[in-house]
């Protein structure tokens, strides 16, 4: 990961604040990426740690607070899911909430992962971890909300721009909904780009802020979305493999017997969700909440996802 230039005063203050809770630490380093959260790398007590801290004034609809995200991380860790070991939640760190977890070693950048010589078992490992996540008892995380497809329409309406391609995708999803499956604890953003990988395969699952209760196949299909293939488009599952091994292992472990056409449906749903996500990210810039060129340009790059929606509809609408 790259680091960000920052005033030495900020670093000194952060170090003092962290040392108050963790004991003596190394100099904290602010890592790049993530407009809504800061990530600081720091070592303390001989451990490699990562501090996730809220950024200024950002509260997203439908995402977990850091306190809730930490609770989900703890539940996943207890369930034996490969995740960074949760260390502690800090209600106030230099004026904002934060939590501390283990800092895993490995590659997280999607564009690099799809170009790596990843081990053949990576898709199977990802299926195994997802099966464990979906088996977490929902009573363990009573604050998780149940998501519904209708929410996507509400989010699009909040943006207020006409996007016929997204509307067509939503229409298809309304008309062709497979028989509903019982809601489980889902990760909500399960894909290459949110996992740590090394030469032995999967190291850990990151970014739990979108966790919620949902149909398991929605989580299973999200990693197929073309945007998360990072240019390796011919490998339908995250630019690393075809879906066969991933789906077979997931079905074997869960007994859910997910069909390929169901996966097609949720791949389309994932694209529709991400197309709307691009627009809502751009709204964060346009509304003045988070002024940023990266967020702004997503409003235009969403056309890529809309094109993929049309492409999928052409195949399905036979």
């Amino acid at each position: 990961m790259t680091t960000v230039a920052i005033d030495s005063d900020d670093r000194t203050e952060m170090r003092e604040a962290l040392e108050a809770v963790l004991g003596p630490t190394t100099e904290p380093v602010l890592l790049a990426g993530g407009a809504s959260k800061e990530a600081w790398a720091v070592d303390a007590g001989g451990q490699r740690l990562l501090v996730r801290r809220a950024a200024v004034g950002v509260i997203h609809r439908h995402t977990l607070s850091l306190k809730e995200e930490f609770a989900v991380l703890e539940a996943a860790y207890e369930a034996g899911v490969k995740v960074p070991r949760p260390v502690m939640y800090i209600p106030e760190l230099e004026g904002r909430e934060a939590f501390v977890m283990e800092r895993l070693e490995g590659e997280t950048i999607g564009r690099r992962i799809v170009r790596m010589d990843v081990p053949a078992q990576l898709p199977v490992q990802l299926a195994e971890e997802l099966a464990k996540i979906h088996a977490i008892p929902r009573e363990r995380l009573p604050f998780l909300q149940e998501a519904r497809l209708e929410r996507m329409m509400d989010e699009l309406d909040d943006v207020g721009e006409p996007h016929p391609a997204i509307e067509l995708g939503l229409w298809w999803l309304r008309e062709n909904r497979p028989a509903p499956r019982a809601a489980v604890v889902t990760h909500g953003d399960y894909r290459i780009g949110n996992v740590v990988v090394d030469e032995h395969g999967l190291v850990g699952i990151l970014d739990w802020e979108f966790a919620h209760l949902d149909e398991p196949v929605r989580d299973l299909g999200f990693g197929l979305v073309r945007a998360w293939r990072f240019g390796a488009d011919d490998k339908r599952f995250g630019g690393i493999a075809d879906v066969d091994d991933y789906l077979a292992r997931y079905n074997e472990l869960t007994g859910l017997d997910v069909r390929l056409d169901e996966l097609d449906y949720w791949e389309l749903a994932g694209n529709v969700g991400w197309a709307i996500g691009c627009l809502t990210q751009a709204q964060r810039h346009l509304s003045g909440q988070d002024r940023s060129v990266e967020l702004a340009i997503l409003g235009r790059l969403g056309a890529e996802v809309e094109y993929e929606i049309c492409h999928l509809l052409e195949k399905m609408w036979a």
Partner: protein
Amino acid sequence: MSERPTAQELTEAIAEFLGGEILPTLTDHRLRFRMLVAMNALGIVHRELAALPPEDDTERRELARRIRADDVEQGMLAVVKADVEARLRIASPRYLDRYA
């Protein structure tokens, strides 16, 4: 207006980035001067764009409304795809190569 950010809004975002994040890091006098000139040029683009009429999105809005009301026919897909493709030729032309 349906293409957001508009071209004008994009120039604003770039101007804020250059002025707020890049300019303060430039220590070389010549580079600072040329950055200020570039930002002036961007200002010209911004004001010129302001004089253009806004994009007419009546058709797009009507199509979106019909689809939401479940008034869908198969021929719509080709129309919608052509519209997205035209937007992509501006926003990200190389993306289309991925479907070749």
